[in-house]
């Protein structure tokens, strides 16, 4: 098993862990952490392919993903804080107004 395959397998497994976490967890903050896990898996795949192809373009994309992730976390956490102010809860099962 080559190093390349190991990195891709780790990336796929991390992404799956993130998906399962988003589906299973109820604490909104932990759901956000699982989204970070998925972004990290994508970054790992970017760097791995970048190395494989001998170009730096993949690493450039990692920077963009990191910048968007930082913006997303700031917005997401402020949404969580606002929801907590209104509902006194961060359980994602308590925020179902859009479903009705």
């Amino acid at each position, binding site marked *: 098993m080559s190093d390349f395959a*190991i990195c891709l397998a780790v990336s796929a497994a991390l992404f799956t*862990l993130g998906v399962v976490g988003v*589906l*299973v967890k*109820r604490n909104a903050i*932990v759901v*956000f952490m699982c989204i970070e896990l998925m972004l*990290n898996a994508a970054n790992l795949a970017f760097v791995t392919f970048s190395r494989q192809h001998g170009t730096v373009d993949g690493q*450039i994309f990692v920077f963009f993903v990191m910048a968007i992730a930082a913006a997303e976390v700031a917005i997401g956490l402020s949404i*969580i804080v606002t929801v907590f102010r209104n509902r006194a809860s961060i359980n994602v099962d308590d925020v179902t107004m859009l479903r009705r």
Partner: protein
Amino acid sequence: METLLYLVFGLVALVGGVLVIVNRNPVYSALSLVLTMFAVSALYILQQAYFVAAVQIVVYAGAIVVLFLFVIMLLNLGDQGNLPAASGTRRFVGALLGVTFAGIVGAVVWEYASTAGPAAAAAGDIDHTKSLARVLFQNYLLPFEVVSIVLLAALVGVLALIRTHGRGLDSSEADNV
């Protein structure tokens, strides 16, 4: 020898990812996330993406996870934060979907990894920070500027979200002054 390091850090990353999900306490989840970030950063170093590895530690472990911990401690959830994972059926459906997804992604990775072979192209000088900057500021200058606008939009959005509709200082805190 190097393959062993890949395996070790890959396993550490996966263990950290599992701990993020398994832990009940969100603070422990955040610390497990740091473990995963460091292991992924080590994988970057093994692939000679040194600058990306440094940025990974500074931005993720240094800024994003600290932001998570800050919010956890700001909300001061106590026992309310230790929510049980989910009901039995939802856990079952989540696991089922996870296994299905892992199968699909694993099949694609297996396909690619077995066909592409070990053709690691001229890996010598692709990872200098200088060449990275040259590509970023020449080929990707427009996306770079767009990202800076996105960050500004996020900043404004956060302020708009957190703002309490003009009653920031007048009603509650004016009494204390």
